[in-house]
């Protein structure tokens, strides 16, 4: 289960980063605004189709793996204790839709292209880099955690077994993960500064994403859909 960008040339890879980001934003709003069980699960179904045509089917597995614990808790809390399975299904749909759309965003948007797109629209480098780095943060932490886990296992740490044993294993994993990440931030700041990140020059986009009429139309459509849905809920 790998998070982060997956190289490819599917539909979402060819889409302008702003369009994919707009989709993620729109889905996150619509799952809460649209009523009923069908809306969130309908969005999930739509995202599944999008993942399939974009060659990103493995992302659905990752989304399901991340969503499953939430489903379990929701069914337990709402379905078993409160006898309200409907709410559990709605909430599970919302969580699944949001996780799926953000994992698709992570998998299809190259951080460098996102930075290029933002710089092209006049965003300052610091802000653009912050957005790009955010997309990278989760996969980087995942890789670092795997390396720390391997190292600690070699030193005799047992991470399988009872719940207590697993909980006890968290500290030797979390502490080096956090401290290592903090130390890395310092060195990366030095490296970025020396590589012209604070030069004040307008960065040359290496491979700027093309923003066609269809992409712009899709973004306007998403904005209209979100605005319409919010107004409809407010007025009804």
């Amino acid at each position, binding site marked *: 289960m790998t998070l982060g960008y997956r190289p490819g040339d599917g539909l979402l890879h060819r889409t302008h980063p702003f369009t994919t980001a707009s989709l993620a934003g729109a889905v996150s709003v619509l799952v809460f605004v649209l009523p009923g069980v069908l809306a969130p699960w309908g969005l999930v179904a739509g995202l599944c189709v999008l993942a399939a045509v974009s060659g990103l089917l493995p992302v659905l597995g990752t989304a399901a793996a991340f969503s499953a614990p939430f489903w379990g808790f929701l069914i337990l809390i709402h379905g078993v204790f409160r006898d309200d399975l409907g709410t559990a299904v709605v909430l599970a749909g919302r969580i699944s839709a949001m996780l799926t759309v953000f994992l698709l965003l992570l998998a299809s948007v190259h951080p460098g292209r996102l930075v290029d797109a933002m710089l092209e629209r006049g965003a300052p480098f610091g802000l653009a880099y912050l957005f790009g780095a955010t997309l990278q943060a989760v996969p980087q932490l995942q890789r670092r955690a795997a390396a720390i886990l391997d190292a600690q296992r070699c030193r005799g740490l047992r991470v399988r077994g009872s719940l207590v044993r697993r909980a006890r294993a968290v500290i030797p994993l979390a502490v080096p993960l956090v401290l290592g990440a903090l130390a890395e931030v310092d060195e990366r700041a030095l490296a970025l*500064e020396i590589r012209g990140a604070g030069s004040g020059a307008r960065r040359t986009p290496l491979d700027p994403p093309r923003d066609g009429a269809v992409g712009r139309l899709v973004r306007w459509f998403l904005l209209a859909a979100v605005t319409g849905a919010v107004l409809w809920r407010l007025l009804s």
Partner: protein
Amino acid sequence: MSVHLEQVAFRYPGSGFDALRDLSLEFAPGLVHLVTGRLGSGCSTLLLVIAGLAPHVTGGSRSGSVVTLGLDPGGSGRRDLAGRIGLLLPTPWTQLSGMAYTVAEEVAFGPANLGWNRDRIREAVDGALRLVELERFADRDPRTLSGGELQRVMFAAIVAMDPAVCLLDEPAMELDLETTEMIYQHLPALARERTVIVATTDLDRAVRVADRVVLLDGGSVIGEGNPADVLGTARAVEAGATTSAARIAYLAGIAPTFPLTVSAAVERFSR
């Protein structure tokens, strides 16, 4: 002089002592300067001060005057010096931009930040990758490379920016012997039109290409001059900064100046 330091002292934030003390040094272009000393003697800090990153990025306090390429790198000259000072850090993975999915993109990150046009960037990237013999890796994901390969990529990334001052902090930290030799062999050519300052404890190899040595101990300069005069002394051996050949000569009770390389030792002992 491309780098001039006058009575420079530097202290890291929260530290109770100065990492650099009363340093007055000059570094001329056209030479490979070697800065050495035992670990903690201030070599890396000196490079950060020359680059203007200490205290600008690291925090802390600096006194004295630092002039790099005619400007104060930590103050008013910071923006004008962008791209004119290159710094290679010892750990390659912390230097990755995080924005590149190919080695070529990683090398292009610096030139792109400087606003160069795409043709110039492409030319600089190709030349730098050729220099470190990594052209065949141009389309590889940098995260799939070994530490040594990645360090070569970062070396190429610095060279691609065509800096006037090249600061290399333990450039061979992750490299095997063969690649270390390759990197060191490039330094004299690199220094032809630039100022190259290498901070390292790997003196056996570095000394072969160094034109001048600055020996630090406890943040102060205790020796400065040509490699034989500075590193071939008992003081250099006692400061923990000399070559294996010189150390053996010292232990064998040979009179200074000690030979710094195996070939110099053979010549000396065969007399």
